[in-house]
């Protein structure tokens, strides 16, 4: 079971870039890394997924070093609407069902 460790909370200001790092020291060869975003009173929403190096979509970028023991979710130029909890998941099959407590991002004006 790939255990993940994330900061409990982070603060930022509008317009700044936010980087949230997740540690997953015992990641397995077949494991993908997936990030979800959850707003209050809503279910989590898929943001991005990667296996190695860098992945970018319209919402975020995901940086994964060569050893894959960590990953960094990068949110460019955050706005107030990016205030949410961000979860890092690592694994395949039922391993990926462990969400943990996530990182609570608060964006200030």
């Amino acid at each position, binding site marked *: 079971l790939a255990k993940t460790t994330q900061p409990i909370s982070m603060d930022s200001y509008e317009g700044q870039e936010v980087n949230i790092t997740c540690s997953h020291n015992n990641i397995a060869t077949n494991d*993908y890394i*997936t990030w*979800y975003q959850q707003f209050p*009173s*809503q*279910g*989590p*929403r*898929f943001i991005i*997924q990667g296996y190695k190096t860098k992945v970018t979509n319209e919402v975020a970028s995901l940086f994964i070093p060569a050893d894959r023991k960590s990953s960094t979710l990068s949110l460019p130029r955050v706005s107030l609407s990016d205030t949410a909890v961000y*979860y890092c*998941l690592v694994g*395949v*099959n*039922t391993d*990926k*069902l*462990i*969400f*943990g*407590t*996530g990182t609570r991002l608060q964006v200030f004006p």
Partner: protein
Amino acid sequence: GAGVSQSPSNKVTEKGKDVELRCDPISGHTALYWYRQSLGQGLEFLIYFQGNSAPDKSGLPSDRFSAERTGGSVSTLTIQRTQQEDSAVYLCASSFYLETDTQYFGPGTRLTVL
């Protein structure tokens, strides 16, 4: 359907009563998951279905919890003899296959046990 739907959105019940929570997954999704989220906490995995079968029931908190899925679609989570500690938001998600990491979540059912 457009997304995962759950009903009811809110349920208030008295301690000791049974409740049924329903989840309608996205059409064509073979995998379905149930989670529980207490106030301010992360998601707690309860059970998943691949088709109509649930190979892993170890996440269910007690034998008062049960779930079924029929026709590879709708799922119901039943909590018997509810307790106050069962109060939480119950989230359902679905995905095309279990091996696919992208889960699509419903809005949840907020259960309050008085």
